[in-house]
């Protein structure tokens, strides 16, 4: 990473940065696919919340190819892969206590998901 000089701080912060990767990685899923979040419990960083593990959802959008945070947090490289918006119904997540009209949309990566 290039050194951040004081005079450039404001411009850099205003611009922000993106974890999007310009790479031709094939997508494992597409909008409308039913998926199941993997039941994983890694000791390291993961973007897959506990309450969604083992739950079924629907891909609503393919955001494109992004750095995979679960690997990137631990010096395991960017492992670029597709990131999707996945819709989980409140009933699927919370059972009978879930509101029938509510859902949670979670951004998840290919390595978090299996075909349902």
């Amino acid at each position, binding site marked *: 990473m290039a*050194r*951040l000089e004081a005079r450039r701080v404001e411009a850099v912060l205003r611009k922000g940065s993106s974890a999007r990767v310009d790479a031709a990685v094939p997508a494992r899923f597409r909008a409308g696919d039913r998926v199941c979040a993997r039941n994983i419990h890694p000791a*390291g960083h993961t973007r897959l919340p*506990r309450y969604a593990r083992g739950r079924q959802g629907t891909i609503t959008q393919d955001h494109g190819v992004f750095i995979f945070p679960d690997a990137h*947090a631990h010096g395991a490289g960017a492992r670029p892969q597709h990131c999707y918006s996945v819709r989980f119904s409140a009933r699927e997540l919370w059972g009978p206590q879930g509101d029938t009209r509510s859902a949670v949309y979670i951004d998840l990566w290919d390595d978090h998901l299996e075909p349902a």
Partner: protein
Amino acid sequence: MNGAHDLGGMHGFGPVERERDEPVFHADWERRCFALTLAMGAYGAWNLDATRYARETMPAGEYLTTGYYEHWLHGLQRQLIEQGLLTREEIEARMARLRGESDHGAT
């Protein structure tokens, strides 16, 4: 990791209290903590995902009873120590000096 940061679906925290005209920082040390974290991010010794993980490693009881920027401070200290940029002893000596205690010769 299955840490205290992964709060989704848990009961017992009470309502989310919205603060009118909430300031970006509630104390000056929070502003400094944020600036130091960004500055050290620009140094390039670690990436954004690693900073998130460093905050997640805070002991669960501590995590749930401290504020947002205390989590940031924990993460920053952990990374500075892990990367060998500071030692825990150096941080503790500086804190003791700021509290007005003897720093046992550290500068």
